[in-house]
């Protein structure tokens, strides 16, 4: 965080302070823009307004307790955060998750990707002056949140994915709302596209804006739709598959223009691909079967067992008092979040609390590309660039 600067630049330029309360920064991002007329000479992002020390707090929690903190990192993708954290802990423990739980995870995470892209599309359209799209996007997002509420009991801070599986059995009759959503959504995406894709203002604001070459993007560690819009098909679901993604049939949409418009097209195409994955996952999820790994001492025992078996009662007590201790070592798990490569690095020293938890957050790293992207562009294009990077400030600052 930089202290407030009152400098006015050189005689030719002026410094404009954008944010931290500017609506198009989607939270509390502050950008110091040095302007020559309407052209950006330099842009300096200033972050940290939402820093809550989640990584430090994790060090003081047992492995299972820390899951609730992961929800709050990227609040548009809580299930994805739960997943990457659990994958890292499961890797440390060398724990195998039942197939049924893996498919449930995939289905919910893909629904989450659609809901996150919907928020992105709606807010970005508002930034560009198209008010109505936001209302349509939130209408559909509401349906997804209702599905989450049925599965997890929560609309947003789900904490549903747990170490070794998922928290609860899917609710009775869960297929109905998911199927209804799948049937409804393709036409709704067509609707957004009818409003935007061929829209002259939309194209005028986005086409050719914020170009970066694939080489620069890779050098800047950018991942996600931003990199795929430059023609690099890097997607963790395909390249380093997790949670049985290798069994699913889907494409990784790419474009080559690498401008804001290409990033928009990639995200819309991704929503359609996610629908394909959700449909397949729904067919793969068996009607009954285990949702948690067989791992006494790590996965809490079932209620019924606790009433009849002494060991189950002891394990239950131990898990919720001292926790469990993975062997000393490190693990780094990655997933493809709606924003790019989301990673979780955990170092264990063999005690019930992690020695270090670190999140490789795509928003934080993708935001690094902003100064390069906007230099030389118009000030209005800065808004388009910030929008298409798709940052969530909770994840930038953690």
């Amino acid at each position, binding site marked *: 965080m930089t202290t407030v600067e009152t400098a006015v630049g050189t005689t030719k330029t002026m410094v404009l302070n954008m944010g931290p309360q500017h609506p198009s920064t989607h939270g509390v991002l502050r950008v110091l823009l040095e302007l020559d007329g309407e052209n950006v000479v330099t842009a300096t992002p200033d972050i940290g307004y939402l820093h809550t020390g989640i*990584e430090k707090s994790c060090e003081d929690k047992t492995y299972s307790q820390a899951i609730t903190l992961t929800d709050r990192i990227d609040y548009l993708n809580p299930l994805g955060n739960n997943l990457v954290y659990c994958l890292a802990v499961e*890797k440390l423990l060398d724990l195998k998750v039942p197939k049924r739980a893996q498919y449930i995870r995939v289905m919910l995470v893909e629904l989450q990707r659609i809901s996150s892209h919907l928020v992105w599309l709606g807010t970005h359209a508002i930034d560009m002056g198209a008010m109505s799209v936001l209302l349509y996007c939130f209408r559909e997002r509401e349906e997804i949140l209702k599905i989450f509420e049925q599965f997890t009991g929560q609309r947003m801070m789900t904490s549903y994915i747990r170490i070794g599986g998922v928290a609860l059995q899917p609710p009775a009759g869960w297929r109905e709302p998911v199927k209804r959503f799948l049937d409804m959504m393709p036409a709704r995406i067509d609707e957004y596209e009818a409003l935007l894709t061929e829209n002259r203002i939309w194209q005028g604001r986005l086409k050719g804006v914020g170009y970066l070459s694939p080489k620069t993007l890779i050098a800047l560690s950018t991942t996600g739709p931003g990199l795929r819009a430059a023609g690099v098909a890097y997607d963790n679901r395909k390249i380093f598959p997790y949670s049985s993604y290798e069994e699913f049939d889907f494409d990784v949409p790419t474009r080559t223009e690498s401008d804001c418009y290409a990033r928009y097209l990639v995200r819309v195409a991704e929503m359609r691909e996610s629908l394909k994955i959700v449909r397949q996952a729904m067919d793969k999820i068996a009607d009954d079967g285990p949702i948690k790994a067989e791992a006494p001492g790590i996965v809490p025992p079932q209620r019924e067992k606790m009433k009849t078996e002494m060991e189950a009662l002891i394990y239950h007590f131990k898990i919720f008092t001292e926790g469990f201790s993975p062997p000393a070592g490190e693990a780094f798990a990655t997933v493809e979040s709606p924003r790019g490569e989301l990673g979780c690095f955990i170092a264990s020293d063999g005690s019930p609390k992690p020695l*270090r938890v670190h999140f490789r957050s795509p928003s934080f790293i993708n935001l690094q590309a902003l100064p390069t992207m906007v230099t030389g562009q118009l000030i209005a294009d800065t808004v388009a660039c910030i929008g298409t990077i798709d940052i969530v400030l909770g994840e930038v600052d953690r």
Partner: protein
Amino acid sequence: MTQLANASTGVVVEQLRAWNPQAVSEMVEYRGETTIVVPRELLLATAKQCKENPALDFNLLSDATCVDRFPVEPRFELNYHLVSLARRDRLRLRTSVSAQQPVIDSLVPVWLGANWLEREIFDLFGVRFEGHPDLRRILLPEGFEGAPLRRDFPTEGKR
């Protein structure tokens, strides 16, 4: 569970040893992940080799982070997670710096993306990066005292 493609570990170590026999002081394979421990002074050169050697081709720096092993010395362990997009491979480079001299070469000359990652480590651990173009605090306010992610910094209450 994620299983990383690590069939190429042998090639990576071989290539690095052929380039400089001192570059790899230790190789750890754990849970399908490869870690190469590099001497502190050779980190920058090894990173450059990892990126520029066409047989390695680690062109993307995915992540950089620090682990504080307090009270063990050298206490700060730096982990760099590399990705080769072409070879679909991952690698972790590791090196350690001591509490007396928490200084390490910056990797910004190799991967521009190291910029903010190193600023974050500087901010939260107090490890300095030599040759970094813009080493300032990034998440915490400028007047903040201390490095909160160090293990001797309490989670709650005053220091």
